[in-house]
Structure formats: C-alpha cells, structure tokens
C-alpha cells in the first residue's frame, strides 16, 4: 500500500437479512484529504463509514485503514482514528469537560490533546462546566467532534455532522472542519447536503443504492455532468427542447420534472456565450420566455443527471 493512502476499500458488500446496504463499493481516500460521501438517506453512506470505523464487519470485500485491516489490529487502529457518529446521546448530566476528560483516559496520555486547548479550539470553553443536557444542538455537535479529536487521530470520521443544525451552527462547524483540513488531517464525512460537500471536500464520492456511482472533485463532477451553468427555460408558445440543442455552447439538455414546474434546462459552460444565442433563437421562433433562470450547477444537479432523482427526496 502506498504511504499516501489513508483508506482503501474494494468490492465492499454489506448484506443484512433482507437488505443489501452496500453493494460492491470501491474507494480510496488519500492522506490529508477531505473526502465526502454524498448521497440521499438510505444510500449506504453510514454503513460504509461504520465499516471503515471498524464498528461493523463487512459481509465481503476488503477494508484497509492506515495500511491495516481491522482483523487483529482493532486496538491499534482505534487509537489512531477519531469518530463522530450520526447521533450519539452522551451522559446528559455530565459536564462538557468531564465528558472530554473521560474520553481522554481511553487514549495514550502522551499523544492525546489537552482538554483545555480542545475546549478553546471548539469554542466550548464557556460551556466547560455545563451539563450536556443544557447544550444547544450546535454545542452538542461541537462536543461530539471534540470527542473525535481528543486522541489526536490521523483520520477523523464525521457522519452527517451538520444534519439538524441551524445555519449559524452549520457554518461554525464548517469553519472547524476547514481548519482541521488545513492542518493536514484526513477527514471522511458523509452528507446529503450538496453545499456542504462542495464547500468542504477535496473529493466527493456519490453513493446511491449501496454503490459509488461517481467520484471526483466537486468541479470535475459538475463539469462531467454537463456544465457549470444551467439555464432553466419555459416558453410560450411552448417549444420542444430540440429547438435549442444545436445552440452554441449548449452541452446537454435536461427535462425538468413536472413536479418542479416542467420545462427544461440547458447545460452550458459559458452563459455569456449561450444566452445571446438563446435570445436570438427565441426571437427567430417568435416565442417568449415565461421562465428563464441562469444559475451555477451544483452537486445536486450531478446527482439528478446520474439518477434522475434529487438528493432531497426522502
């Protein structure tokens, strides 16, 4: 295994009695990389991450973390990774500092971070003597991340770190993760928020039905799926999408679901080239736009173009 690889998974399968949660998944996470598993709820992200964390045994396939498999190396690996589960309820009547101090005893004293410094870094110093039950959602989540960091891990796993948080707490947590990234920590996170993945992750793996269906940097994925911009269009009289397929700069055309109001979207790389051509075509066909939106494409659009569904479908 190359020294720059933090995690390597090949042909991972996790089958439960009646469900296949992960169905032949391969991926590689580099050291110092922030890797995001993006996918809708139930896609198999949490199962995949919990197998990486050594919390679940795989049905088939191989998992190597920091060059080792989990069999026989659990004790060593657990000391080198940090984990934040999707949802953990800690001891409600323990204070923030007591909880951190307890977790610190599980790690090698010479390696573990100082509680005081970590409280400072996670902006929990003011809350150090507060019972966990009195913390806000954002504070609880910061404590959960702090517990993942207390052993000074080489890899930090974050499962849906900002789900259920208010926008302000989300941004605060994003800043924290960005800081960790700058310090060269390997971070693996799962999310169903495309903005989170775009903003934090060096590379993103898109997961659907237990498989990795695309992988790359957010920019690569967006570019591969058609273009950086989308022009959403509806006209009167109604023109078919084919009327625009030969326009300069149009790389693909996507039908918009009727639930979203119908019409279609033109995928373009350079709106300043495509839009004048579009207006010329409209004039030529004597049609008026009843809806015209030009916007940057997102990972949500990538997911939509790959699966025909949006990430938010629950």
């Amino acid at each position, binding site marked *: 295994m190359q020294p720059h690889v933090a995690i390597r998974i090949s042909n991972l399968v996790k089958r439960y009695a009646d469900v296949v949660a992960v169905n032949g998944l391969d991926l590689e996470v580099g050291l110092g990389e922030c890797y995001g598993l993006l996918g809708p709820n139930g896609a198999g992200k949490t199962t995949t991450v919990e197998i990486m964390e050594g*919390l679940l045994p795989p049905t088939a396939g191989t998992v190597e973390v920091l060059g080792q498999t989990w069999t026989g190396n659990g*004790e060593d690996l*657990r000391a080198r990774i940090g984990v934040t*589960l999707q949802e953990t309820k800690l001891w409600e009547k*323990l204070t923030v500092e*007591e909880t951190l101090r*307890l977790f610190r005893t599980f790690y090698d004293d010479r390696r573990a971070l100082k509680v005081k410094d970590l409280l400072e870094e996670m902006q929990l110093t003011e809350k150090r003597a507060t019972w966990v039950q009195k913390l806000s959602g954002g504070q609880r989540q910061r404590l959960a991340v702090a*517990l993942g960091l207390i052993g000074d891990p080489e890899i930090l796993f974050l499962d849906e770190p900002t789900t259920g948080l208010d926008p302000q707490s989300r941004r605060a947590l994003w800043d924290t993760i960005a800081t960790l990234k700058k310090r060269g920590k390997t971070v693996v996170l799962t999310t169903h928020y495309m903005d989170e993945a775009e903003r934090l992750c060096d590379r993103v793996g898109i997961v659907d039905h237990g498989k990795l269906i695309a992988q790359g940097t957010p920019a690569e994925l967006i570019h591969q799926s058609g273009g950086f911009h989308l022009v959403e269009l509806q006209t009167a009289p109604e023109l078919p999408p084919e009327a625009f397929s030969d326009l300069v700069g149009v790389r693909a055309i996507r039908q918009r679901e009727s639930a979203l109001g119908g019409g279609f979207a033109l995928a373009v790389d350079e709106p300043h080239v495509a839009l004048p051509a579009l207006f010329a075509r409209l004039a030529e066909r004597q049609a008026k736009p009843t809806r015209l939106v030009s916007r940057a494409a997102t990972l949500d659009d990538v997911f939509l173009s790959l699966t025909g569904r949006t990430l938010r479908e629950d």
Partner: protein
Amino acid sequence: MTYSMTPLLALAGVRIKEFFREPGAIFWTFGFPLLLTVALGIAFRTEGPPRSTVALVYGGAGAPALLATLRAEPALSVEPLSAEIAAARLRGGDVLLVVEPPASSGQPVVYRFDPARPDALAIRRQVDELLQRAAGRTNPLPTRDETALARGARYIDWLVPGLLGMQLLSGALWGTAWIIVNARQRKLLKRLTATPMRHGHYLLSFRLSGLLFVPLQVIVLFAFARWTFGVKMYGSPVAVLALSLFASWSFAGLGLLCASRAQNNETANGLVNLVTLPMFMLSGVFFSSARFPTFLHPFIRLLPLSAYNDALRHIVNDGASLASQGVPLGVLAVWGVATSAIALRLFRWG
C-alpha cells in the same frame, strides 16, 4: 498503548456522578426502602396481647362481683350488656364470649361462645380460670409467663434484612441493566467501542461503583431502622458488609444478563421485572418463604435473593458468623459466575 487503571476509575466515577445527579435514582435507591420500613413497621408493629371482648349479661345474682373480677384482668375488655344485645354481638363476632351470672345462688355460671373459634375457646378458658380462682381455687403447680420476645424476633427485625435484600437486588439489576441498555439505545455503547476503551473496563466500572453504593445502602437502612424501630444488628457489621458486597456482585451478573441483548429500555424493564418480582415474592422479603408448599422449598433456597436473605438474617438477627454461611455464599457464587459468563458470551456492543 498504556494499560492504566485510569479509564476504569474514570468510568466508575461517571457512574457515581450520574447517580448522585439524578434525584429519582437517589430516592428509589435510598428513600424508598426507608418509606417501606416505616410503612410496614407501623402496619405490623408488635403490641401487647390483643384485648378480647367479653360480654357480661347484667342482672342476676353476683353480677357486680363477676364484673369486678373480670375487669381486674387487663387483657380483657368487659362490657355489661343486656341478654339480647349480648346475643346479637356474639352472632356479629365482635364479642367472643358471653358470661351469664347464675340466676340464683347454687346455679352455674353459663358461658356462651362459638366452639369453632379457637380464640373463643381460649378466652373461655381464661375467664373460667379467673372466676375459679376468685372463687377460691388454687393451682397445685406454680407457673410463670414469660412474654418478652426473644431478641431479633419482632416482625420489623425480620423485615429489615429482607428489605435490604430487595434493595440490593433491584439496585444491582436496574443499576446495571437499565444503564447499559439505555447506553446501547442512545448509541453511547457504540461510540465507546469506537475508542480504544477496553470493554472489560466499562463492565467492571459497574462492579467498582458498587463498592460505594452497597455500603451506603447497608448503612443508611440499618441506621434508620435502628433509630426508628430499635432494630439491632447482632452479628458483625463487617460480615454484613462483606456479604452484601458479595451478593450485589452476584446480582449484577443477572443485571448483565438482562442487559446483554436488549435493544431498548422497554425490553430491559420487562426483563428486570421478570427476574426481580418473583424473587420479591418467593425469597422471603415481606413474608417467610415457609408459607409456600414444602416441595418448593429446595428450589426457593437456590434463588440468589433467598440465599442472601437467609444468610443476612442469620448474621443480623442471630449473630451468626459469615464463615457459617457457606451454603448461601456458594449459591451466590454460582449465580454470579454463571450469569456473568453467559452474559459476556451474549453481550452485544452495537
């Protein structure tokens, strides 16, 4: 990695903090047994012999003399009544004996009572004895009644060790099973297994915190029982403490077994009740297990709570030594080892 004891101590510390920050837990562990002691101690307090009611039919010769004789006996409550009312109260059952004075001198005194009632027979004998002696009979054989109870023989003396047994059993089971299953349901167990924490440290922390809880329970209950009802501990307090720690260790095995697989609190509650409630009935907490049919006795004696209650009563009420309680200690040891071993095989961290 360093294998220090620190995580074990830290986890036990968490158990103790968690407990003392939960008013409900404090009440059920310490307050409730005291309330039970007071309630049962008052309900079943031992008084002097009950006063029995005797009716004396008023009229006829010598009635005032008879009344004076009977009234001199403090154990009797004598009411002079008319014949009709006396008969009605005898039928009603609140008068056990009706005494009719002789209609004229030379006639007999008549006792009316229901011979099917043993207490009526006893009171007839007592009244007859009083009247015969007043009439001049002397007993050839001198006798003396000793009514003071033997030491540790009141109901409350017998009850308090049983309450301690109930308290330790439920403390060990709830304090192990409920806490573990709650942690599993909250995914706290899973979170802990994602750290290098040794699993044995987590489980041992429950036994370790018991070293604080059990002596507190023993001391609080016995101090309270002594203060309120004068319950005395005739055996060695050290023996009582050692036995209680050992029993609580054994009971915790049952708690671990209840906690080994249950995924939610409801299941854990059901299992703990399933284990504890039959033992509260069978193992002589509130009433002696001698009341159950004889063929059940060998089985009842093999229950861990029976073993603890028996040994504890021998030490507390009879002043026996811990060394003399080999059989109950053996029963507790087998339960503790067997339940812990099975529980560890079944235990699920996820």
